[in-house]
Protein backbone atom coordinates (compact mmCIF):
# COMPACT_ATOMS: atom_id res chain seq x y z
CA UNK A 1 0.00 0.00 0.00
CA UNK A 2 1.06 3.55 -0.67
CA UNK A 3 2.36 5.23 2.49
CA UNK A 4 2.94 8.69 1.02
CA UNK A 5 -0.70 9.57 1.62
CA UNK A 6 -3.70 7.96 3.29
CA UNK A 7 -7.31 8.59 2.52
CA UNK A 8 -9.54 9.83 5.31
CA UNK A 9 -11.66 6.66 5.33
CA UNK A 10 -8.62 4.49 6.13
CA UNK A 11 -7.53 6.67 9.06
CA UNK A 12 -11.08 7.15 10.34
CA UNK A 13 -11.71 3.40 10.32
CA UNK A 14 -8.56 2.80 12.38
CA UNK A 15 -9.33 5.52 14.92
CA UNK A 16 -12.93 4.34 15.18
CA UNK A 17 -12.20 0.65 15.72
CA UNK A 18 -9.14 0.48 17.95
CA UNK A 19 -9.74 0.67 21.70
CA UNK A 20 -6.53 -0.42 23.41
CA UNK A 21 -3.39 1.49 22.40
CA UNK A 22 0.13 0.68 23.60
CA UNK A 23 2.45 3.66 23.18
CA UNK A 24 6.10 2.63 22.87
CA UNK A 25 8.34 5.48 24.02
CA UNK A 26 5.74 7.29 26.15
CA UNK A 27 7.46 10.04 28.14
CA UNK A 28 6.47 11.17 31.65
CA UNK A 29 7.65 14.72 30.81
CA UNK A 30 4.64 16.91 30.12
CA UNK A 31 6.37 18.95 27.39
CA UNK A 32 7.17 15.96 25.19
CA UNK A 33 4.98 15.25 22.15
CA UNK A 34 4.39 11.64 23.33
CA UNK A 35 2.89 12.96 26.57
CA UNK A 36 0.58 15.29 24.59
CA UNK A 37 -0.64 12.46 22.41
CA UNK A 38 -1.02 10.01 25.29
CA UNK A 39 -3.11 12.48 27.25
CA UNK A 40 -5.24 13.50 24.27
CA UNK A 41 -6.05 9.93 23.28
CA UNK A 42 -6.80 8.96 26.89
CA UNK A 43 -9.24 11.89 27.09
CA UNK A 44 -10.92 10.68 23.90
CA UNK A 45 -11.67 7.35 25.60
CA UNK A 46 -8.85 5.12 24.34
CA UNK A 47 -7.46 2.58 26.79
CA UNK A 48 -3.85 3.78 26.83
CA UNK A 49 -0.85 1.70 27.94
CA UNK A 50 2.51 3.50 28.35
CA UNK A 51 5.57 1.41 27.39
CA UNK A 52 8.93 2.64 28.68
CA UNK A 53 11.41 0.33 30.46
CA UNK A 54 13.05 3.27 32.22
CA UNK A 55 9.83 4.25 33.99
CA UNK A 56 8.57 0.94 35.36
CA UNK A 57 7.11 1.37 38.84
CA UNK A 58 5.77 4.82 37.93
CA UNK A 59 2.61 5.69 36.09
CA UNK A 60 1.49 8.13 33.42
CA UNK A 61 -1.83 9.89 34.07
CA UNK A 62 -2.82 7.00 36.33
CA UNK A 63 -1.72 4.22 33.91
CA UNK A 64 1.23 2.11 35.13
CA UNK A 65 4.27 2.03 32.83
CA UNK A 66 5.02 -1.38 31.29
CA UNK A 67 8.58 -2.40 30.35
CA UNK A 68 7.85 -3.96 26.95
CA UNK A 69 5.11 -5.07 24.59
CA UNK A 70 5.44 -8.71 25.77
CA UNK A 71 4.69 -7.72 29.34
CA UNK A 72 1.32 -6.05 28.75
CA UNK A 73 -0.50 -9.30 29.47
CA UNK A 74 -3.64 -8.51 27.47
CA UNK A 75 -4.48 -7.96 23.79
CA UNK A 76 -3.73 -4.54 22.24
CA UNK A 77 -5.49 -3.20 19.15
CA UNK A 78 -2.84 -0.68 18.15
CA UNK A 79 0.83 -0.02 18.83
CA UNK A 80 1.84 3.64 18.54
CA UNK A 81 5.62 3.87 18.02
CA UNK A 82 7.14 7.05 19.46
CA UNK A 83 10.73 6.04 18.63
CA UNK A 84 12.95 7.09 15.72
CA UNK A 85 13.16 4.94 12.59
CA UNK A 86 16.32 3.02 13.63
CA UNK A 87 14.45 1.57 16.65
CA UNK A 88 11.41 0.49 14.67
CA UNK A 89 12.41 -2.96 13.40
CA UNK A 90 13.06 -4.58 16.81
CA UNK A 91 9.72 -3.22 18.07
CA UNK A 92 7.95 -4.60 15.00
CA UNK A 93 9.61 -7.98 15.45
CA UNK A 94 8.25 -8.16 18.98
CA UNK A 95 4.83 -6.98 17.82
CA UNK A 96 4.74 -9.88 15.38
CA UNK A 97 5.19 -12.38 18.25
CA UNK A 98 2.14 -11.14 20.16
CA UNK A 99 -0.91 -13.35 20.34
CA UNK A 100 -3.37 -12.09 19.26
CA UNK A 101 -1.54 -9.81 16.81
CA UNK A 102 -2.27 -6.09 17.02
CA UNK A 103 -4.63 -4.82 14.31
CA UNK A 104 -2.64 -1.65 13.65
CA UNK A 105 0.93 -0.39 14.00
CA UNK A 106 1.17 3.37 13.86
CA UNK A 107 4.51 5.21 13.53
CA UNK A 108 4.62 8.83 14.63
CA UNK A 109 5.27 11.99 12.59
CA UNK A 110 8.77 11.83 11.16
CA UNK A 111 9.01 8.02 11.55
CA UNK A 112 8.91 5.88 8.43
CA UNK A 113 10.26 2.40 7.83
CA UNK A 114 9.05 0.83 4.59
CA UNK A 115 10.65 -2.55 5.25
CA UNK A 116 8.97 -2.86 8.66
CA UNK A 117 5.68 -1.79 7.09
CA UNK A 118 5.90 -4.50 4.45
CA UNK A 119 6.57 -7.13 7.12
CA UNK A 120 3.56 -6.01 9.16
CA UNK A 121 1.27 -5.85 6.16
CA UNK A 122 2.31 -9.37 5.14
CA UNK A 123 0.97 -10.47 8.55
CA UNK A 124 -2.33 -8.66 7.89
CA UNK A 125 -1.59 -5.71 10.18
CA UNK A 126 -2.58 -2.22 9.06
CA UNK A 127 0.20 0.35 9.03
CA UNK A 128 0.23 4.14 9.32
CA UNK A 129 3.57 5.99 9.15
CA UNK A 130 4.73 9.58 9.56
CA UNK A 131 1.40 10.69 11.02
CA UNK A 132 0.21 11.68 14.49
CA UNK A 133 -3.03 10.10 15.81
CA UNK A 134 -3.76 13.27 17.79
CA UNK A 135 -3.49 15.44 14.69
CA UNK A 136 -5.49 12.95 12.62
CA UNK A 137 -8.21 12.69 15.28
CA UNK A 138 -8.34 16.48 15.54
CA UNK A 139 -8.41 16.82 11.77
CA UNK A 140 -11.20 14.32 11.11
CA UNK A 141 -13.30 15.65 13.99
CA UNK A 142 -12.41 19.17 12.74
CA UNK A 143 -11.39 20.10 16.29
CA UNK A 144 -7.91 21.02 15.02
CA UNK A 145 -9.51 23.81 13.00
CA UNK A 146 -9.79 25.79 16.25
CA UNK A 147 -6.03 26.29 15.86
CA UNK A 148 -6.42 27.52 12.27
CA UNK A 149 -5.17 24.23 10.83
CA UNK A 150 -6.31 23.12 7.39
CA UNK A 151 -8.31 19.97 8.24
CA UNK A 152 -8.48 19.03 4.54
CA UNK A 153 -12.14 18.14 5.05
CA UNK A 154 -15.47 19.79 4.19
CA UNK A 155 -18.93 18.97 5.52
CA UNK A 156 -22.49 20.19 5.17
CA UNK A 157 -23.66 17.95 8.00
CA UNK A 158 -24.17 18.98 11.58
CA UNK A 159 -21.42 17.38 13.63
CA UNK A 160 -22.37 15.42 16.73
CA UNK A 161 -21.81 17.61 19.77
CA UNK A 162 -18.33 16.87 21.07
CA UNK A 163 -18.42 15.92 24.71
CA UNK A 164 -15.38 15.42 26.87
CA UNK A 165 -14.13 11.87 26.77
CA UNK A 166 -16.60 10.88 24.05
CA UNK A 167 -15.63 9.89 20.56
CA UNK A 168 -18.72 11.06 18.78
CA UNK A 169 -17.32 13.87 16.76
CA UNK A 170 -14.99 11.61 14.81
CA UNK A 171 -18.06 10.28 13.01
CA UNK A 172 -18.61 13.60 11.27
CA UNK A 173 -19.61 12.97 7.68
CA UNK A 174 -17.10 14.76 5.45
CA UNK A 175 -15.40 14.78 2.09
CA UNK A 176 -11.87 15.85 1.12
CA UNK A 177 -11.05 19.57 1.48
CA UNK A 178 -8.17 21.93 0.70
CA UNK A 179 -4.97 20.10 -0.21
CA UNK A 180 -1.55 20.67 1.30
CA UNK A 181 0.29 19.46 -1.79
CA UNK A 182 3.39 21.62 -1.27
CA UNK A 183 3.96 20.37 2.28
CA UNK A 184 3.26 16.79 1.17
CA UNK A 185 5.82 17.10 -1.62
CA UNK A 186 8.47 18.33 0.83
CA UNK A 187 7.70 15.47 3.23
CA UNK A 188 8.07 12.93 0.40
CA UNK A 189 11.29 14.51 -0.77
CA UNK A 190 12.71 14.47 2.77
CA UNK A 191 11.81 10.81 3.08
CA UNK A 192 13.44 10.08 -0.28
CA UNK A 193 16.59 12.00 0.74
CA UNK A 194 16.71 10.03 4.00
CA UNK A 195 16.41 6.71 2.16
CA UNK A 196 19.01 7.75 -0.43
CA UNK A 197 21.58 8.56 2.25
CA UNK A 198 20.70 5.45 4.31
Amino acid sequence: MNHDSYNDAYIREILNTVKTVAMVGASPQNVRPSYFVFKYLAERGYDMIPINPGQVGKSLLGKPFVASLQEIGRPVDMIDIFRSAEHVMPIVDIALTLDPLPKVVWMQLGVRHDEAAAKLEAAGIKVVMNRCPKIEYGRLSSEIQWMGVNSRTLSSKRAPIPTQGMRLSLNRSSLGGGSTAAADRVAQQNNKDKNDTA
Partner: protein
Amino acid sequence: MNDRIPGFGTLAVHAGAQPDPTTGARATPIYQTTSFVFNDADHAASLFGLQSFGNIYTRITNPTTAVLEERVAALEGGTAALAVASGHAAQLVVFQQLLQPGDEFIASRKLYGGSINQFSHAFKSFGWNVVWADPDDVPSFERAVTDKTKAIFIESIANPAGSITDIEAVAAVARKAGVPLIVDNTLATPYLIKPIDHGADIVVHSLTKFLGGHGNSLGGIIVDAGTFDWSKGNKYPVLSEPRPEYHGIKLQETFGNFAFAIACRVLGLRDLGPALSPFNAFLIQTGIETLPLRMQRHSDNAKAVAEWLSAHPKVAAVNYSGLSDNRYHTLARKYAPKGAGAVFTFSLKGGYDAGVSLVSNLKLFSHLANVGDTRSLVIHPASTTHSQLDDEAKTRSGAGPDVVRLSVGIEDKEDLIADLEQALNA
Protein backbone atom coordinates in the same frame (compact mmCIF):
# COMPACT_ATOMS: atom_id res chain seq x y z
CA MET B 1 -6.13 6.56 -2.95
CA ASN B 2 -6.52 10.27 -2.29
CA ASP B 3 -9.85 11.83 -1.49
CA ARG B 4 -11.17 14.03 -4.26
CA ILE B 5 -9.89 17.59 -3.92
CA PRO B 6 -12.68 20.15 -4.37
CA GLY B 7 -12.26 23.13 -6.68
CA PHE B 8 -11.48 26.69 -5.66
CA GLY B 9 -15.10 27.88 -5.76
CA THR B 10 -16.22 25.03 -3.50
CA LEU B 11 -13.43 25.71 -1.01
CA ALA B 12 -14.22 29.45 -1.02
CA VAL B 13 -17.76 28.67 0.13
CA HIS B 14 -17.19 25.66 2.41
CA ALA B 15 -13.65 25.36 3.74
CA GLY B 16 -13.51 25.77 7.51
CA ALA B 17 -17.28 26.15 7.96
CA GLN B 18 -19.78 23.51 8.99
CA PRO B 19 -23.25 23.69 10.54
CA ASP B 20 -23.00 24.73 14.18
CA PRO B 21 -23.06 21.52 16.25
CA THR B 22 -25.22 23.03 18.99
CA THR B 23 -27.86 24.98 17.06
CA GLY B 24 -27.59 23.70 13.50
CA ALA B 25 -27.02 27.30 12.26
CA ARG B 26 -25.74 27.03 8.69
CA ALA B 27 -23.99 30.41 8.46
CA THR B 28 -21.01 30.64 10.80
CA PRO B 29 -22.17 32.21 14.08
CA ILE B 30 -20.32 35.28 15.34
CA TYR B 31 -18.81 34.09 18.61
CA GLN B 32 -18.63 37.59 20.03
CA THR B 33 -17.11 36.57 23.34
CA THR B 34 -13.82 37.35 25.00
CA SER B 35 -13.47 34.00 26.79
CA PHE B 36 -14.50 30.35 26.91
CA VAL B 37 -15.27 28.22 29.97
CA PHE B 38 -13.05 25.30 30.92
CA ASN B 39 -14.52 21.87 31.65
CA ASP B 40 -12.33 21.56 34.75
CA ALA B 41 -8.89 22.50 36.05
CA ASP B 42 -7.19 19.75 34.07
CA HIS B 43 -8.82 20.88 30.81
CA ALA B 44 -7.64 24.43 31.53
CA ALA B 45 -4.12 23.18 32.18
CA SER B 46 -4.05 21.17 28.93
CA LEU B 47 -5.23 24.16 26.94
CA PHE B 48 -2.66 26.52 28.47
CA GLY B 49 0.05 23.89 27.97
CA LEU B 50 -0.95 23.49 24.26
CA GLN B 51 -1.73 19.83 24.94
CA SER B 52 -5.35 20.11 23.71
CA PHE B 53 -7.03 21.94 20.86
CA GLY B 54 -9.57 24.40 22.19
CA ASN B 55 -10.50 27.95 23.03
CA ILE B 56 -9.31 29.98 25.98
CA TYR B 57 -9.51 33.65 25.11
CA THR B 58 -10.24 35.49 21.86
CA ARG B 59 -6.79 37.08 21.73
CA ILE B 60 -5.45 33.57 20.98
CA THR B 61 -8.26 31.66 19.24
CA ASN B 62 -11.92 32.25 18.40
CA PRO B 63 -14.26 29.79 16.60
CA THR B 64 -15.53 32.41 14.12
CA THR B 65 -12.01 33.55 13.28
CA ALA B 66 -10.92 29.89 13.00
CA VAL B 67 -13.32 29.40 10.09
CA LEU B 68 -11.66 32.28 8.26
CA GLU B 69 -8.23 30.84 9.04
CA GLU B 70 -8.97 27.37 7.73
CA ARG B 71 -10.67 28.82 4.66
CA VAL B 72 -7.67 30.93 3.63
CA ALA B 73 -5.25 28.08 4.44
CA ALA B 74 -7.28 25.79 2.17
CA LEU B 75 -7.48 28.35 -0.65
CA GLU B 76 -3.72 28.98 -0.55
CA GLY B 77 -2.85 25.26 -0.18
CA GLY B 78 -1.18 25.82 3.20
CA THR B 79 -1.17 23.66 6.32
CA ALA B 80 -2.55 26.34 8.68
CA ALA B 81 -3.23 30.04 9.02
CA LEU B 82 -3.45 32.75 11.67
CA ALA B 83 -5.72 35.77 11.25
CA VAL B 84 -4.74 39.06 12.89
CA ALA B 85 -6.03 42.63 13.09
CA SER B 86 -4.48 43.99 9.87
CA GLY B 87 -2.06 43.21 7.08
CA HIS B 88 0.62 45.17 8.89
CA ALA B 89 0.06 43.15 12.06
CA ALA B 90 0.53 39.97 9.99
CA GLN B 91 3.93 41.20 8.82
CA LEU B 92 4.96 42.18 12.35
CA VAL B 93 4.00 38.79 13.77
CA VAL B 94 5.77 36.88 10.97
CA PHE B 95 9.06 38.73 11.36
CA GLN B 96 8.98 38.51 15.15
CA GLN B 97 9.18 34.70 14.86
CA LEU B 98 12.06 34.81 12.37
CA LEU B 99 14.37 37.64 13.41
CA GLN B 100 16.55 38.35 16.42
CA PRO B 101 17.96 41.86 16.97
CA GLY B 102 20.79 42.43 14.47
CA ASP B 103 19.36 40.05 11.87
CA GLU B 104 18.58 41.02 8.29
CA PHE B 105 15.87 40.27 5.75
CA ILE B 106 15.78 41.07 2.06
CA ALA B 107 12.71 42.84 0.69
CA SER B 108 11.62 43.83 -2.76
CA ARG B 109 11.83 47.59 -3.39
CA LYS B 110 8.42 47.42 -5.05
CA LEU B 111 6.05 47.13 -2.13
CA TYR B 112 3.01 48.86 -0.70
CA GLY B 113 4.32 52.20 0.67
CA GLY B 114 3.14 51.34 4.18
CA SER B 115 5.26 48.18 4.13
CA ILE B 116 8.30 50.16 3.01
CA ASN B 117 7.72 52.47 5.99
CA GLN B 118 7.15 49.60 8.42
CA PHE B 119 10.35 47.85 7.32
CA SER B 120 12.50 51.01 7.18
CA HIS B 121 11.44 52.63 10.43
CA ALA B 122 9.34 50.57 12.86
CA PHE B 123 11.35 47.38 12.32
CA LYS B 124 14.63 49.23 12.74
CA SER B 125 13.68 50.02 16.33
CA PHE B 126 13.55 46.24 16.98
CA GLY B 127 17.00 45.81 15.45
CA TRP B 128 15.57 44.06 12.36
CA ASN B 129 17.42 45.34 9.33
CA VAL B 130 15.87 45.43 5.88
CA VAL B 131 18.09 45.12 2.80
CA TRP B 132 16.37 46.17 -0.42
CA ALA B 133 16.53 44.29 -3.71
CA ASP B 134 15.06 44.91 -7.14
CA PRO B 135 12.32 42.46 -8.22
CA ASP B 136 13.09 43.25 -11.87
CA ASP B 137 16.67 42.08 -11.28
CA VAL B 138 16.43 38.78 -9.36
CA PRO B 139 20.24 38.42 -8.98
CA SER B 140 20.08 41.54 -6.77
CA PHE B 141 18.37 39.32 -4.15
CA GLU B 142 21.20 36.83 -4.35
CA ARG B 143 23.81 39.58 -4.00
CA ALA B 144 22.03 40.86 -0.87
CA VAL B 145 22.30 37.52 1.00
CA THR B 146 24.63 37.57 4.03
CA ASP B 147 25.03 35.19 6.96
CA LYS B 148 22.56 37.39 8.87
CA THR B 149 19.78 37.00 6.28
CA LYS B 150 16.75 35.27 7.78
CA ALA B 151 14.01 35.76 5.18
CA ILE B 152 13.07 37.19 1.78
CA PHE B 153 9.88 39.23 1.32
CA ILE B 154 8.13 40.08 -1.97
CA GLU B 155 4.65 41.00 -3.23
CA SER B 156 3.18 38.68 -5.90
CA ILE B 157 1.51 41.60 -7.68
CA ALA B 158 3.13 44.77 -6.34
CA ASN B 159 1.19 47.76 -5.04
CA PRO B 160 0.85 50.36 -6.54
CA ALA B 161 2.20 49.64 -10.04
CA GLY B 162 0.74 46.16 -10.47
CA SER B 163 4.09 44.71 -11.54
CA ILE B 164 4.49 40.93 -11.30
CA THR B 165 7.37 39.35 -9.39
CA ASP B 166 9.04 36.19 -10.73
CA ILE B 167 8.16 34.19 -7.61
CA GLU B 168 9.89 30.97 -8.70
CA ALA B 169 13.17 32.75 -9.41
CA VAL B 170 13.16 34.49 -6.02
CA ALA B 171 12.12 31.21 -4.35
CA ALA B 172 15.22 29.58 -5.85
CA VAL B 173 17.39 32.30 -4.25
CA ALA B 174 15.67 31.75 -0.90
CA ARG B 175 16.15 27.98 -1.08
CA LYS B 176 19.83 28.38 -1.88
CA ALA B 177 20.25 30.81 1.02
CA GLY B 178 18.34 28.44 3.34
CA VAL B 179 15.77 31.07 4.31
CA PRO B 180 11.98 31.14 3.91
CA LEU B 181 10.32 33.11 1.11
CA ILE B 182 7.44 35.28 2.36
CA VAL B 183 4.99 36.45 -0.30
CA ASP B 184 2.43 39.21 0.26
CA ASN B 185 -0.40 37.93 -1.95
CA THR B 186 -2.85 40.74 -1.15
CA LEU B 187 -3.31 42.12 -4.65
CA ALA B 188 -3.51 38.77 -6.43
CA THR B 189 -5.46 36.69 -3.89
CA PRO B 190 -5.17 32.89 -4.25
CA TYR B 191 -7.77 33.04 -7.02
CA LEU B 192 -5.25 34.66 -9.38
CA ILE B 193 -1.93 33.43 -7.95
CA LYS B 194 -1.10 30.67 -5.45
CA PRO B 195 2.43 31.54 -4.29
CA ILE B 196 2.85 28.26 -2.40
CA ASP B 197 2.65 26.41 -5.73
CA HIS B 198 5.59 28.54 -6.87
CA GLY B 199 7.82 28.00 -3.83
CA ALA B 200 6.59 30.42 -1.13
CA ASP B 201 7.04 29.15 2.44
CA ILE B 202 4.83 31.78 4.08
CA VAL B 203 2.02 33.83 2.54
CA VAL B 204 0.65 37.00 4.12
CA HIS B 205 -2.39 39.05 3.22
CA SER B 206 -4.06 42.25 4.05
CA LEU B 207 -7.60 40.79 4.27
CA THR B 208 -8.74 44.41 4.15
CA LYS B 209 -8.50 44.30 0.35
CA PHE B 210 -9.91 41.74 -2.11
CA LEU B 211 -10.37 38.82 0.31
CA GLY B 212 -12.83 40.76 2.48
CA GLY B 213 -13.61 42.60 -0.70
CA HIS B 214 -16.28 45.04 0.44
CA GLY B 215 -14.21 47.78 2.01
CA ASN B 216 -15.79 47.25 5.44
CA SER B 217 -13.23 45.45 7.64
CA LEU B 218 -9.55 45.53 8.40
CA GLY B 219 -7.77 42.22 8.80
CA GLY B 220 -4.61 40.32 8.03
CA ILE B 221 -3.60 36.68 7.76
CA ILE B 222 -0.48 34.51 7.81
CA VAL B 223 -0.49 31.18 5.94
CA ASP B 224 2.07 28.49 6.73
CA ALA B 225 2.93 26.44 3.63
CA GLY B 226 4.38 23.69 5.83
CA THR B 227 7.40 23.50 3.53
CA PHE B 228 10.27 24.96 5.56
CA ASP B 229 12.54 22.96 7.89
CA TRP B 230 13.05 25.31 10.85
CA SER B 231 15.53 23.09 12.64
CA LYS B 232 18.32 23.36 10.05
CA GLY B 233 21.44 25.14 11.29
CA ASN B 234 19.78 26.55 14.41
CA LYS B 235 18.84 29.73 12.52
CA TYR B 236 15.29 29.88 13.86
CA PRO B 237 15.58 29.21 17.60
CA VAL B 238 11.98 30.36 18.22
CA LEU B 239 10.82 27.26 16.35
CA SER B 240 13.58 24.76 17.04
CA GLU B 241 14.61 25.44 20.66
CA PRO B 242 12.69 24.83 23.90
CA ARG B 243 10.29 27.70 24.64
CA PRO B 244 10.56 29.01 28.19
CA GLU B 245 6.98 30.41 28.02
CA TYR B 246 5.70 26.86 27.57
CA HIS B 247 7.96 25.02 30.02
CA GLY B 248 10.39 23.89 27.31
CA ILE B 249 8.15 22.77 24.43
CA LYS B 250 9.91 22.69 21.05
CA LEU B 251 7.39 23.98 18.54
CA GLN B 252 8.61 22.34 15.33
CA GLU B 253 9.04 18.97 17.04
CA THR B 254 5.55 19.19 18.54
CA PHE B 255 3.54 20.71 15.70
CA GLY B 256 5.42 19.48 12.62
CA ASN B 257 4.46 21.14 9.36
CA PHE B 258 2.18 23.75 10.92
CA ALA B 259 4.64 24.82 13.63
CA PHE B 260 5.19 28.26 12.12
CA ALA B 261 1.48 29.11 12.26
CA ILE B 262 1.38 27.87 15.87
CA ALA B 263 4.42 30.00 16.76
CA CYS B 264 2.74 33.06 15.25
CA ARG B 265 -0.34 32.33 17.38
CA VAL B 266 0.99 31.21 20.74
CA LEU B 267 4.01 33.53 20.83
CA GLY B 268 3.35 36.38 18.37
CA LEU B 269 -0.37 37.01 18.67
CA ARG B 270 -0.56 36.00 22.32
CA ASP B 271 2.21 38.35 23.41
CA LEU B 272 1.96 41.24 20.93
CA GLY B 273 -1.84 41.20 20.96
CA PRO B 274 -3.16 42.34 17.53
CA ALA B 275 -6.22 40.03 17.53
CA LEU B 276 -8.90 40.25 14.85
CA SER B 277 -12.45 40.98 15.99
CA PRO B 278 -14.77 37.98 15.45
CA PHE B 279 -17.21 40.35 13.76
CA ASN B 280 -14.57 41.36 11.21
CA ALA B 281 -13.73 37.67 10.71
CA PHE B 282 -17.41 37.03 9.93
CA LEU B 283 -17.61 39.85 7.39
CA ILE B 284 -14.35 38.84 5.73
CA GLN B 285 -15.25 35.16 5.42
CA THR B 286 -18.64 36.10 3.97
CA GLY B 287 -16.72 38.18 1.43
CA ILE B 288 -14.46 35.25 0.56
CA GLU B 289 -17.47 33.13 -0.43
CA THR B 290 -17.74 35.21 -3.62
CA LEU B 291 -13.99 35.74 -4.15
CA PRO B 292 -13.72 33.79 -7.43
CA LEU B 293 -16.68 35.66 -8.96
CA ARG B 294 -15.48 39.06 -7.79
CA MET B 295 -11.84 38.57 -8.68
CA GLN B 296 -12.64 37.51 -12.23
CA ARG B 297 -14.93 40.50 -12.67
CA HIS B 298 -12.36 42.87 -11.09
CA SER B 299 -9.69 41.60 -13.49
CA ASP B 300 -11.92 41.68 -16.57
CA ASN B 301 -13.06 45.23 -15.77
CA ALA B 302 -9.49 46.36 -15.10
CA LYS B 303 -8.34 45.01 -18.45
CA ALA B 304 -11.17 46.82 -20.26
CA VAL B 305 -10.42 50.09 -18.46
CA ALA B 306 -6.67 49.75 -19.06
CA GLU B 307 -7.22 49.10 -22.78
CA TRP B 308 -9.51 52.10 -23.04
CA LEU B 309 -7.06 54.36 -21.18
CA SER B 310 -4.11 53.33 -23.32
CA ALA B 311 -5.94 54.54 -26.44
CA HIS B 312 -6.80 57.93 -24.88
CA PRO B 313 -4.87 60.93 -26.25
CA LYS B 314 -4.36 62.52 -22.80
CA VAL B 315 -2.82 59.39 -21.30
CA ALA B 316 0.98 59.11 -21.42
CA ALA B 317 1.34 55.48 -20.29
CA VAL B 318 -0.65 52.64 -18.69
CA ASN B 319 1.14 50.16 -16.44
CA TYR B 320 -1.08 47.10 -16.46
CA SER B 321 0.54 43.71 -16.82
CA GLY B 322 -2.63 42.39 -18.45
CA LEU B 323 -1.84 44.48 -21.56
CA SER B 324 0.21 42.66 -24.19
CA ASP B 325 2.80 45.45 -24.59
CA ASN B 326 3.50 45.63 -20.83
CA ARG B 327 6.97 44.61 -19.65
CA TYR B 328 5.42 42.21 -17.09
CA HIS B 329 3.01 40.62 -19.55
CA THR B 330 5.00 37.37 -19.91
CA LEU B 331 5.19 37.01 -16.12
CA ALA B 332 1.48 37.83 -15.86
CA ARG B 333 0.62 35.08 -18.33
CA LYS B 334 2.72 32.60 -16.41
CA TYR B 335 1.65 33.46 -12.86
CA ALA B 336 -1.81 34.97 -13.30
CA PRO B 337 -3.36 33.44 -16.43
CA LYS B 338 -6.94 34.17 -15.31
CA GLY B 339 -6.29 37.90 -15.09
CA ALA B 340 -3.75 40.41 -13.84
CA GLY B 341 -5.79 41.83 -10.98
CA ALA B 342 -7.57 45.13 -10.50
CA VAL B 343 -4.84 47.51 -9.35
CA PHE B 344 -2.69 49.42 -11.81
CA THR B 345 -1.28 52.85 -12.47
CA PHE B 346 -1.23 55.21 -15.39
CA SER B 347 0.30 58.60 -16.04
CA LEU B 348 -1.13 61.63 -17.77
CA LYS B 349 0.58 63.81 -20.33
CA GLY B 350 -0.48 66.79 -18.22
CA GLY B 351 1.70 65.51 -15.28
CA TYR B 352 1.02 66.13 -11.61
CA ASP B 353 -1.69 68.80 -12.15
CA ALA B 354 -3.63 66.68 -14.63
CA GLY B 355 -3.53 63.78 -12.15
CA VAL B 356 -4.87 65.92 -9.32
CA SER B 357 -7.61 67.34 -11.53
CA LEU B 358 -8.64 63.90 -12.83
CA VAL B 359 -9.05 62.61 -9.29
CA SER B 360 -11.24 65.57 -8.32
CA ASN B 361 -13.44 65.33 -11.44
CA LEU B 362 -14.34 61.64 -11.10
CA LYS B 363 -17.90 60.99 -9.92
CA LEU B 364 -18.10 57.22 -9.63
CA PHE B 365 -14.53 56.38 -8.61
CA SER B 366 -13.96 57.17 -4.92
CA HIS B 367 -10.85 59.09 -3.94
CA LEU B 368 -9.44 57.19 -0.99
CA ALA B 369 -6.44 55.25 0.33
CA ASN B 370 -7.47 51.65 -0.17
CA VAL B 371 -7.65 49.00 -2.86
CA GLY B 372 -9.79 45.91 -3.33
CA ASP B 373 -13.26 47.26 -2.67
CA THR B 374 -16.31 46.27 -4.77
CA ARG B 375 -16.36 50.01 -5.59
CA SER B 376 -13.86 51.53 -8.00
CA LEU B 377 -11.19 53.58 -6.24
CA VAL B 378 -8.63 56.16 -7.32
CA ILE B 379 -5.67 57.77 -5.64
CA HIS B 380 -2.62 59.86 -6.38
CA PRO B 381 0.03 57.82 -4.49
CA ALA B 382 2.77 60.48 -4.56
CA SER B 383 0.73 62.81 -2.36
CA THR B 384 -0.85 60.11 -0.13
CA THR B 385 0.19 56.45 0.45
CA HIS B 386 3.74 57.01 -0.77
CA SER B 387 4.11 60.63 0.42
CA GLN B 388 6.60 59.73 3.17
CA LEU B 389 9.05 58.27 0.65
CA ASP B 390 11.65 60.52 -0.99
CA ASP B 391 11.26 61.25 -4.71
CA GLU B 392 13.69 58.57 -5.81
CA ALA B 393 12.02 55.91 -3.67
CA LYS B 394 8.61 57.06 -4.96
CA THR B 395 9.68 56.58 -8.56
CA ARG B 396 11.42 53.30 -7.77
CA SER B 397 8.29 51.87 -6.18
CA GLY B 398 6.19 52.99 -9.16
CA ALA B 399 4.58 56.04 -7.53
CA GLY B 400 6.16 58.96 -9.36
CA PRO B 401 4.48 62.42 -9.21
CA ASP B 402 2.55 61.99 -12.51
CA VAL B 403 1.13 58.59 -11.55
CA VAL B 404 -2.52 57.84 -10.74
CA ARG B 405 -3.52 54.47 -9.25
CA LEU B 406 -6.84 52.75 -9.87
CA SER B 407 -8.44 49.84 -8.08
CA VAL B 408 -11.12 48.82 -10.53
CA GLY B 409 -14.35 47.64 -8.91
CA ILE B 410 -17.09 45.26 -10.02
CA GLU B 411 -19.51 47.88 -11.38
CA ASP B 412 -20.42 47.83 -15.10
CA LYS B 413 -17.28 48.61 -17.04
CA GLU B 414 -19.14 50.94 -19.43
CA ASP B 415 -20.01 53.19 -16.47
CA LEU B 416 -16.42 53.22 -15.25
CA ILE B 417 -15.11 54.15 -18.69
CA ALA B 418 -17.78 56.86 -19.05
CA ASP B 419 -16.74 58.32 -15.68
CA LEU B 420 -13.07 58.38 -16.69
CA GLU B 421 -13.99 59.92 -20.03
CA GLN B 422 -15.96 62.79 -18.53
CA ALA B 423 -13.25 63.42 -15.94
CA LEU B 424 -10.45 63.45 -18.53
CA ASN B 425 -12.43 65.83 -20.76
CA ALA B 426 -13.61 68.11 -17.93
